[in-house]
């Protein structure tokens, strides 16, 4: 069967199964299990209403538990076992082995670099663009263009930037923009930017910053527009210059949103995989945790160490997780 037809069938089956499940389970609940008639009509209605939320929630909860919650614990278990020994419990051996690997520390160092640089620069650029485009006529077009990379896949962006970083031998016409600009500015010779250890990390980060700035801009520009007009007017009357207005009046009022943007990008950074996988595959000291883990899992087939690396990523994410959950609960009260 052709996959497209299979896909169409799946959509039909999936959608009708969903609707069928919700429709019939509700009918069953109201008509068969707790019918709203007879002696216990009142009690039955109450009981039906107690069960109904769980009917609505069941498919989602089942999928969430199976596809996200269960793997967290299973990965933890796998990280403590050894596949070659038939899954025998080996304690912290996998972690010990991982900590003894040079590549792991390199990945961890790079991940911290990414964590420092990417959210900071994306948020700064986003804020800058949001503020600058606020008052100009063609601001909407500018925003649209800066927002556009959000739609481009990490892999597509990697190709785009690989062309920017392309290097031709000395003397030949450069076809990569960076080298062309570099030589135009008086640079001595062309460089293969992605192979210069340490600095190449920043060339990879540029790709993610390029993608994430649009996200930061959209959210921050909404926040800036939400700043009460009176506070700005009062500042103008008091003789504040535009910079003072921005830094002393607007910024303090949107700090909450800045933190949200920052943490959201931080999570994206922790999971970054495609860019490194496509552009350098961790060569020339550009390894990151997600790619290190993929290497262990599917190239070295070492599920134990791979799981241990995944747990490190989870560990790095968990402060944000806790913080988010606490905020969400606070908001509900």
């Amino acid at each position, binding site marked *: 069967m052709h996959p497209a037809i*299979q*896909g169409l069938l799946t959509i039909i089956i999936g959608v009708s199964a969903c609707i069928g499940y919700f429709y019939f389970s509700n009918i069953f609940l109201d008509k068969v299990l707790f019918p709203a008639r007879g002696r216990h009509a009142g009690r039955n209605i109450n009981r039906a209403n107690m069960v109904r939320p*769980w009917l*609505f929630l069941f498919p989602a909860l089942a999928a969430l538990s199976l*596809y*996200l919650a269960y793997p967290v614990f299973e990965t933890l278990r796998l990280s403590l076992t050894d596949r070659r020994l038939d899954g025998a419990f080996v304690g912290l051996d996998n972690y010990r082995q991982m900590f003894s690997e040079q590549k792991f520390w390199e990945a961890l160092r790079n991940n911290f670099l990414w964590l420092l640089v990417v959210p900071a620069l994306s948020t700064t650029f986003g804020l800058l663009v949001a503020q600058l485009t606020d008052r100009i006529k063609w601001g909407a077009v500018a925003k649209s263009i800066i927002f556009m990379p959000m739609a481009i896949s990490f892999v597509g962006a990697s190709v785009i930037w690989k062309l920017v970083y392309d290097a031709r031998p000395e003397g030949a016409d450069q076809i990569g923009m960076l080298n062309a600009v570099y030589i135009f500015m008086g640079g001595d010779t062309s460089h293969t930017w992605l192979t210069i250890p340490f600095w190449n990390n920043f060339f990879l980060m540029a790709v993610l910053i390029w993608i994430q700035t649009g996200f930061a801009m959209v959210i921050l520009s909404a926040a800036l527009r939400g700043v009460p007009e009176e506070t700005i007017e009062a500042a103008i009357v008091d003789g504040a210059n535009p910079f003072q207005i921005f830094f002393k009046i607007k910024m303090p009022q949107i700090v909450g949103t800045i933190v949200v943007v920052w943490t959201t990008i931080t999570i994206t950074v922790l999971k970054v995989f495609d860019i490194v996988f496509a552009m350098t595959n961790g060569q020339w000291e550009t390894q990151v945790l997600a790619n290190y883990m993929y290497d262990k899992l599917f190239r070295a087939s070492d599920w134990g160490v791979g799981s241990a690396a995944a747990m490190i990523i989870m560990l790095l994410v968990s402060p944000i997780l806790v913080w*988010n959950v606490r905020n969400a609960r606070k908001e509900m009260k």
Partner: protein
Amino acid sequence: MDNIAGQKSSLTWAVHFSVIVLVLLWLLPTLGLFVSSFRSADQIASTGWWKSLFAQEQNVVIRAEKPDQQKLIDGLYVIEGNLFAQDGAVEGDVSVWGTSSKDISAYAAGETADLGEKGRLTVEVNGDYRFVNDTEFAGSRGQRVFLTATTPPSFSFTNYKHVLSKDSGTSSMSKAFFNTLTVSIPSTIIPILIAAFAAYALAWMDFPGRALLIAFVVGLLVVPLQLALIPLLKLHLQVGIGKGYLGVWLAHTGFGLPLAIYLLRNYMVGLPKDIIENARVDGATEFQIFVKIILPLSFPALASFAIFQFLWTWNDLLVALVFLIDSSGDTTVMTRQIVELLGSRGGNWEILATAAFVSISVPLCVFFAMQKYLVRGLLAGSVK
């Protein structure tokens, strides 16, 4: 107020200028790839894409036909032809030319050069030349002509035809295109329904443990999907789903649900309470309320999530690598193909650029058509 009014013009210029710089920074990389996808391999490799937008001046050396091609016309020995036709690689308009490397711009197009006993040579703008001599041309090699030619910008769809044609063994991009579509459409539609019901329960039904469940969803929002890879792959292999479309649809559904539930719940909570309570009083069942009132009203949020999920599944590489692509390679997706091309044909920019743009074009269309919903979704979805 005076000082502000006075500063305004210079500051406004600074603002316009900085925005232009930023926009160019963000636009040029993509534009570069886009332009490159319409150029031939030679063009891409020889000059930067930015030069291709303008007519280019090139200095080339082309040899005229060899003396053995000469004809005797009216008592004169003549060699005729077109220099560009001879060379094949270059095309354009001749501005100046010469016959010696020391003075390559000795003559303008249309002029005749008198080379003494070697003959008289005329080169026209379009590259036609006429080499005339009273005596027979000698030697075995054709006369060298140094040309300064202006080449107009030239673009073609050849790369796209090549990349998308089925029989080209290069990439089978057209197959990958349909595979990607097969992955992303069901993965977008299925989670929406499941999430909508759950979001409604979390927003408008009162039951013990609701707050805890919402916290659970918010927590799962940030769980890295890297953790799910091995346990789920093992699970899929155990229950017999294996690697394939079903597996990838299920995985995308699971990974997309937290955001879907969160987005939809946030939106549904904001719907007017009166409508729902009136409907309840009028005797509508919860199912009817959901289908007839909540779903139509939540259309903007549904659209936002659909766009997110579509972009995410279309652009995804990792989930497809783990859950879909088996060793046969029949189910490969575009992102995977592009990574392959990057590895094996890192230098073939014409194929790489075109393949990447085929893959990027669909999300870009979705993006520009539905930007409004995307922005709305982002604003609702970022955890406040």
